[in-house]
């Protein structure tokens, strides 16, 4: 007798399972932005295209390939308040230390958290040999990748 009711229970299980929708983070949802670094001429303060041989984050072995152009987008460490990069230009290495406030923002279950950053004013350079003359902050908040955040004078 109870077997007949199994059909109803089975139906109920199917309905319940069918109700649970898949959580997929939609393409185009907010994302963690990278820092945008611009390069300008130290003397004329005008934009100056650069050709970097290599870029490497301190603490990592893997090297980001070099770039050619006016600006550079690099990821910041979401679990730290400091990100350091070694930039190689004309076989000369220089380290840029970016101090940033890291703010995590919750979106939803499927996307989880993203990170926004605010560049602190004490962002500095450590000169090994010194091709970078100066680092200046243009826009301190990194909520998107539209604006240039810091400028490297060289």
């Amino acid at each position, binding site marked *: 007798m*109870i077997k007949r009711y199994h059909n109803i*229970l089975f139906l109920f299980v199917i309905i319940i399972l069918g109700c649970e929708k898949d959580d997929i983070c939609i393409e185009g949802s907010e994302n963690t932005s990278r820092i945008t670094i611009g390069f300008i001429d130290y003397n004329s303060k005008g934009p100056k295209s650069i050709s970097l041989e290599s870029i490497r984050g301190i603490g990592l072995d893997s090297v980001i390939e070099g770039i050619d152009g006016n600006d550079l987008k690099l990821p910041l460490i979401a679990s730290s308040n400091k990100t350091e990069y070694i930039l190689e230009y004309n076989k000369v290495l220089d380290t840029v230390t970016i101090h940033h406030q890291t703010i995590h923002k*919750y979106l939803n279950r*499927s996307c989880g958290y993203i990170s926004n950053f605010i560049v602190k004013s004490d962002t500095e350079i450590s000169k090994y040999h010194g091709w970078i003359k100066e680092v200046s902050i243009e826009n301190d908040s990194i909520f998107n990748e539209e604006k240039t955040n810091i400028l490297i004078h060289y």
Partner: protein
Amino acid sequence: MIQFLMKKKQIFLFIISFIFSLNSIFSQTENTESDSLKKKDKLLNINKLRFGIDLSNPIISSSNDDNLSYEIVGDLQITDDLYLAGEYGSIDRYIEDENINFNSVGNYLKIGFDYNMFNNWVGMDNSIYVGLRYASSSFSNKVDSYTVRSGDAYFSNLVDNGYENITHNNLNGNWIEIVTGVKVETFKNIYLGISLRLNKLLSDTKPSNFDNLFIPGFNKVTDDNTWGSGFNYTLTYSIPFKKRK
């Protein structure tokens, strides 16, 4: 407007056909029980108090290496077919979600009634029931670690300390449950039961910069959706108030 009415009509037809199909299933069983004894029709028939535990929660918590979770269940027969029913539970569960790992700890209370649809033969006391519950849970969710969404995986995006890895305390959730289940008397006064629950969240206190991804008792909460589901597998003991024939 016409489309809307058409839609309504279709829904109406669907419900009607659904009820009829249910009816045909039940009428089949009734035929075989036509020779069973008719019960006395009394308004109140407080016959038995049943209480017990859910078997699934302790098993889930021990297999996940969590602290003990449990649920105590009980029901009181008030008329022939109607039972006052309730559950109290305590949950401590570590949840590894897609992006966020967190620990959910809390207590819940569910109160409502069950309606038995099963006509027993003499001497039998099984039930197939539908029911309704109002449930309330107070809980906390502690974010243990999470992966920050990023288009770039050059640095590790795992965050396991310091940032939003905090405990969100004093959270509440209220919901209603539509219950369906069976209880089978396996030994005298000992029942094994299984129930399935469809939950509809009414309200919950949202933590700041996080969401209630899991509510003890309600279970998983999905994005932009107030429906959830649950089940329990119970072992109950009945205290009979009257001697059964």
